[in-house]
Every structure is written in C-alpha cells, then in structure tokens.
C-alpha cells in the first residue's frame, strides 16, 4: 500500500483482474490505476484484452478473479446498471446508437438515472453547445447519422449521464482523418474541464499525444506502463506493439 494521499488520487484501480468469455480467458491478471483528472491510454494489438478490460470495469463482463475499485469502493461483480449509476460511464466500441430512437431520445436515455427534468434539460443544452449538429438533427433517427455524428451522439449521451469517469472504447474507429482529430480535440476539452478518461485506442500515436499515462496490454497482461511522453519517445515500442 502506498501513502494515503496517493490512494485518494486514484479514482479507478484494478488489481489482478482475470476475466474471459466461457473457457476463453481474455484477462490474465491486469493491474491498472487511473488518477483523477488524467487521460490514461490503454493500448495494445487486437485481442490484447483492451475492450474486455473496459467491459470488466463497467460490469458487462464479470471478473473471475481480482478486484475493481472505483473511488475507493470495491465494485467487483456489481450489476452494470448499478456501476453506471455511480458515474463510471462506458462508451462502448461501435457506439451502440439506439436504432429507431431519435437523436433526442438517445440523449434523454443517456440521462435515465437523472430524475430532475431541469438538470436533464440543462445537460442537453450543454451537449448541444458542444455538438451543434446534434441539435439540428435531434428529431432524426440516431442510427441514420454519419459515423462522426454517431460518435458525437455516443459521447453526448455519456455526458447526459453525469459522469465522473469516462471509459472510451475506440472513439476514432471508422472515422475519416479529420473527424478523428475532431474527436481527439473533444476528448482533450472534456479532460480540461475536469473529466477523468480511460481511453482505448488503436491509433497509439494519437492516444499518447493526448494521454498523461499509458498502459500497453499484451495477452491479457500489462506488458509495460509509463508516462505517455516516455512511451511516445520510444519508437521501438510504438513499432513493435502498437502498430499505427
């Protein structure tokens, strides 16, 4: 155990987390910490366990061993909907826009746990300020938006929730290069406004530019971890493990 002040700084901590799907073990003891106010990048090749790590944190996948702590509280094995209510909000890979529901309804549901209608309205105003296109398209079916707009909707929906920590899974996937940069800018801005973010990205170079700290997963283990600047400087790492 480290000193008390250090502990307070850590909002999310994984200790020896193992998890998998049926007989396939995807995580073989992951140790990871996310400090308040930081962007932490989670990197690695396909199948390294990045998405499973996020799913285990948010409760979609049950840890078979180890613990997940959120703000000092053990949340291992809790129901995903209860974990979301704590303010640990997971934006899954592929965005998962609710097909057949309008953009506005998607946002409203993001604030499902917010009972106060005024607060919901206020948050929707904030989301519309951040993403004006969503306001213009609010009555359209959410699934008919372009890929970039869907990503904005997915992030906007998470903001409606009243998050303390965001888990973002491949927010740049399938987007045109310009939109990738836009998305990264938004992530940076959210962080500057105080949001702690655990970011899974294929595009390692980009992720390490944003992040304060980085973890590299390989075969369900943390292969290495360091300040993002250090990982970024080590070109051999980028080439060997991260691809481009």
């Amino acid at each position, binding site marked *: 155990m480290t000193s008390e002040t250090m502990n307070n700084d850590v909002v999310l901590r994984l200790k020896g987390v193992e998890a998998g799907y049926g007989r396939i073990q995807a995580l073989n003891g992951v140790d990871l910490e996310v400090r308040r106010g930081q962007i932490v990048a989670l990197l690695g090749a396909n199948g390294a366990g990045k998405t499973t790590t996020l799913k285990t944190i948010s409760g979609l996948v049950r840890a078979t061993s180890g613990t997940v702590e959120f703000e000092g509280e053990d949340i291992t094995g809790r129901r*995903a909907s209860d974990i979301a209510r704590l303010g640990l909000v997971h934006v899954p890979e592929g965005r998962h826009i609710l*097909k057949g529901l309008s953009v506005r309804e998607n946002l*409203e549901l993001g604030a499902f746990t917010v009972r106060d209608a005024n607060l919901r309205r206020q948050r929707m105003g904030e989301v519309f300020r951040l993403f004006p296109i969503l306001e213009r398209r609010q009555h359209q079916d959410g699934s008919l938006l372009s890929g970039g707009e869907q990503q904005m909707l997915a992030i906007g929906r998470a903001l409606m929730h009243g998050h303390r920590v965001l888990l973002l899974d491949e927010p740049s996937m399938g987007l045109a290069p310009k939109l990738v940069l836009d998305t990264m800018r938004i992530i940076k801005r959210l962080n500057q406004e105080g949001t702690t973010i655990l970011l899974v990205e294929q595009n390692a170079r980009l992720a390490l530019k944003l992040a304060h700290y980085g973890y590299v997963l390989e075969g369900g283990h943390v292969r290495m971890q360091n300040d993002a600047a250090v990982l970024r400087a080590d070109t051999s790492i980028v080439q060997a493990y991260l691809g481009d």
Partner: protein
Amino acid sequence: MNLSDIVAQQLVNGLVLGSFYALVALGYTMIFGVIKLLNFAHGDLYMVGGFVGFLALSAISGVVGGDWPGVFIAMLFAMIAVGCLGVVIERVAYHPMLAAPRLSILITALAVSLVLQNAVLGLTGGQYQAFRADLGFGGFDIGSLFIQHNQMVLVGTAALLMVALQLFVTRTQFGRAMRAVSIDKDMCQLMGINVPVVIAVTFFIGSALAAAAGTMAGAYYGSIWYFMGFLIGLKAFTAAVIGGIGSIPGAMLGGLVLGLLEAFGTQIPGIGSEWKDVFSFAVLILVLVLKPTGLLGKPEQERM
C-alpha cells in the same frame, strides 16, 4: 341491405374484432421486443383474464350491477391480477432460460400455455361459463346500419388503452427505456437502466392488456371457456406479424387490419364465416412470403 350498408356493418364488426386482436397482439409484440420470445402462452393470459374478470364481476355485480361500470372494475382487477401472473411467469419460467438456445425458451412457452389451459380446465371441468354481464343491446341507427352501444364502448376502451400505451412508450423515460431494451440490452445497462425490471414491467403491461381484452370479450360474447385463448393467441401472432413483429404501432395496425380482413372476408361470395380462420392464416402466409418484416417493421441491418 344494399352494398354500402354491408360495408358499414362489416366495418363495425371488423373494428370490434380488430380491437381484441390488437390488444392481445400488443403484448405479443412487446414481449418479443424485450426478450425475443414468441410467447405462445400469451393467448392463455387472455383466457385467464376472462376468468378473473368473470370471478371479479360475479363478486361485485350485486353491488355495482353487471353493466359497463361493473365490467370496468372487473377488468381493472383482471388486468392487475393477470399482469402480476405475467411477471411471475417471466421470473419462474422464462428468465432462467434466457441464456439457453432460442428453441428451449419457445418450448417453455408452449409448456406454460399447457399449464394455464389445464389449470383452468381442471378448475372448471371444461365447461363453458356464462359471463354474468348485463350489457343490454341498446344502440342507434345510422340509416339502416345498427351500432350497439356495447360496440362503441368496447372499441373506445381499446383505443384509450392503446393511446395510453403509445404515450407511455414515447413520452416517458421508462417507456423509452422499454423500447431501448428491445434494441440493445448491453447499452441499456451502461446507461444505468435496470434491464430485468424493464422486462418485468413489459410482461406486466402486455399481460394486463390481454386480460383487458379477455374480460371485455367475455362480457361482450357472454361466455368463456378454458380453450378460448388458443385461437386468439394465433390470431394475435398473425396480427403482430402483419404489423411487423416488435413494432408497437404495428401491432395496433395489424390487429385492426386482421379484424377488418376477417369481417370483409366473410362477405366474399363462396367464403362463408366458417372460412374466416383459413382466410386469416392465408393472409399470414402471404405476409411472410411477400413482406416478412410486416407493414411497419424495419428490415434488420447492421451499421458500423
């Protein structure tokens, strides 16, 4: 009777029949939405609703009489009781099967249907029960067309229930959550929605609507028996498919369309009323062949 009278009369008949179909089809389609199960026991919940309504009305008709006010109170009681029965069925029979292959849960639904039918068969000895409602046969004429008050009240009540449901699923957070659960359960959990609770509420509402139809049908037709849910279950399934299974407005539309098709189908020369079931299921087959997604259903497509 001239042709326009026949058309008008069958329109009324079709609306009455279609109201019953639509109410039962709604539960079918909502339950399919949230757990992707064709609940073959759903027609039997309509039947149980008829019997609970019958018992409730028998108990209170001495005080409030057997006319519509009494029937409404009995119907409300049946809706709550059968709604709870639906929730219990989901928890006991379907919930443990959700992770199993789709066929297993379908067979479970058939078993639940048999249990409900045989329970009521055992309790009633398989006899028809006269439904002690006293609705009268009053009405009014429009030209040579005669419309019973009963028909108006019945169609009006069904319409009111459907409007209420539509407002619930489009205007409330919980209703939106219900639609969302039918689309993407994992995402719902990530938004903090307690999915099992939403599924339970869906079963409650769907079963309650079937019970409302069962009580009204008992009061309107004057008799009930343990097997009355079988055929309407199949008809409601047909209606849900015509409208597009999983679509709530589709179930309403499909129910009305099927009711009207049956009413008018019996007027086609050479097709008597004894052929109306053949007519319905021929329509089902046609829809499945020509437009399997139904009138309001959306084709399945994945988008990255």
